[in-house]
């Protein structure tokens, strides 16, 4: 049985009088794909942000286990969490949120340059990832010159290029049509779990969730169900 890469216990988080998380326990195994489902306001994005060290929970702990040992994410300061996200995690957002002024390859290479890699090498790696995701020949296009699906593939390349062991995706296909959505999900799964990495995604699309190995359902800040995909 594979080991856990993320272990969360007793997570609670409130925004003013709204309780977004109410004591969530969740463990994620290395190499699995986990879909977090739920209606709007169920707390799924807040949970994702807590697991990724973007938001610090009011109570509870999040541990990240890698080859270097276990890191208590919730015990890290702002700067250390930022470094952890940069070096160990990858992110794919609903709108891609790529930098519109940069070309596709520059957007991907930027993730490596932030970790200190020289630009030429970073762009070389970036081109490799874009080609692997079916975007060969589009490296020098600006983001506005790409379709929604192509832009999401650039976002996937950006999330993967650093060798992130866990990729967090927030509604990665939310702005795409069903055919493009299926393509993007395939690319996302091939580049993560297909290579032994872990994918944690938030979605309200049952079809997208069904492609993940495990699904947890959330309601009112709690996990109310868990299923293993066929």
């Amino acid at each position, binding site marked *: 049985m594979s080991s856990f890469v993320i272990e969360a216990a007793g997570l609670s988080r409130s925004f003013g009088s709204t309780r977004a998380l109410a004591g969530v326990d969740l463990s994620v195994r290395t190499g699995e794909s986990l879909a977090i489902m739920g209606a709007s306001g169920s707390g799924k994005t807040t949970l994702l942000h807590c697991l990724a060290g973007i938001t610090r929970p009011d109570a509870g702990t999040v541990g990240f286990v890698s080859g270097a040992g276990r890191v208590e994410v919730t015990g890290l300061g702002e700067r250390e969490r930022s470094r952890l*996200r940069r070096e160990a995690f990858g992110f794919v957002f609903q709108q891609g949120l790529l930098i*519109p002024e940069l070309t596709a390859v520059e957007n991907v290479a930027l993730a490596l340059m932030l970790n200190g890699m020289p630009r030429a090498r970073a762009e070389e790696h970036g081109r490799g990832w874009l080609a692997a995701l079916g975007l060969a020949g589009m490296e020098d296009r600006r983001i506005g010159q790409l379709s929604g699906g192509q832009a999401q593939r650039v976002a996937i390349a950006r999330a993967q290029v650093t060798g992130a062991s866990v990729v967090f995706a927030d509604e990665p296909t939310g702005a795409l049509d069903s055919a493009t959505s299926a393509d993007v999900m395939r690319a996302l799964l091939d580049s993560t779990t297909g290579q032994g990495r872990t994918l944690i995604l938030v979605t309200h699309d049952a079809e997208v969730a069904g492609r993940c190995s495990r699904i947890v359902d959330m309601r009112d800040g709690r996990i109310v169900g868990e299923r293993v995909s066929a």
Partner: protein
Amino acid sequence: MIARVAWLLARPGTAGAAASALPVTAFGIVTALLLTVIGGAQAFWTWTDDEGVLYQALAVIALVLLVVPLVSLGGAAARLSARRRDDRLATLRLLGATPAAVSALAVIESAVLAAVGAVAGVVVYLAVVPLLGLIEFRGEPLSASGVLLPWPVLVAVPFGIAALAALSAVLGLRQVVISPLGVRTRQEAPRLHWVRVVIGVGVVALAFGLMAVLRVAPTTMVILGMLAVAFGASLAVLNLIGPWVIRLVARGQASRAKTPARLLAARTVLESPKGAWRQVGGVAMTSFMAVFAGTGVAVLGVMGAEGDAESQLLVTDIRTGILITVVGSFLMVACSVGVNQAAGILDRGELYRSLDMLGMPVATMDAARRRAVMSPLRITAIGSAVTAAIVMLPLTGITLIVAPESLLVIAGVLAAGIGIVWLGLLATRPVLERAASA
């Protein structure tokens, strides 16, 4: 229907009240500065003696120096007001709103924000009038009544500012009307034609020629008129060449950039060379003024040493005029940088937030933002100073320009101008920090 949608769009969105407050503030400052400049100049027109004519001519030069960048800043404020709603108007267009409806919404919103700001500007001007009246020329204060503009002007200016904003909104939103998707996705990198440089060089050469034949002009009024034309045209032409040069330099920087901050900064400038120019365009005027004032002080030094009491008074007054003009230009620069930076951060709030999630340090985002302003600023400051030096050369001779006193004033004014932009950037860092962690 249009009025109803305009009202809905006027309500604070995700950017909060700042979306409306920024353009209103910008228009307020523009109006207050415009009225102050015109009010000060008006006082000179109450003099009817021979020397009064000389003061009026000098005031014309100061007005040209201040009004050109002031109008440019006013235009920037108008575009800012329009840009605040670009996305939502583009969305309306995508939803099927007609081009006429989108234009009407843009005009209504920009005009209303401009009018509110302009009225506030009138109030600020009225508050400043007593202080303005204390400034001494020809040995006595100008007096509050001397610098107070008649009420029809005070009423007309807000209308004029609102009309300028409406016109700017229509021009700025043409792209939304033509291609709504183009604005939403920022498809096209802007292009600037090299013809700008040819026109620019031609105008500078013309200004140089005017300065060269200045000594043979028949009357003082003709001389001063030629001076005003040469300075005004040179300043205006800086607006034409500036964006082109900024783009050229940024292209080189983008291909050579080795760090994320440098790459982001160069690409940000390339995204909108005109926008980069508008942010620091006020410094073009300050730089231009620096050379003008520096040379002027050197000339006055020579005159003051030789002249009688009346000449000494004239020298003192011209020094005062130069100082007021430079201070006015600094205020415009401060306004331009502060408002543009805060607006830029608010516009890109979602992107800054996502970069923070990816683990990009805020220091890197800030460094990119600072570099995207400071690099065009350096080009602008040096380019404008060189242009002014070329135009002034026939008038004063190279000896005066390189005189130590002249150089000191030039360096001092440039340092102050760059320093105030730096302060404007520093002042908006908390806005960036809030946007990144929102």
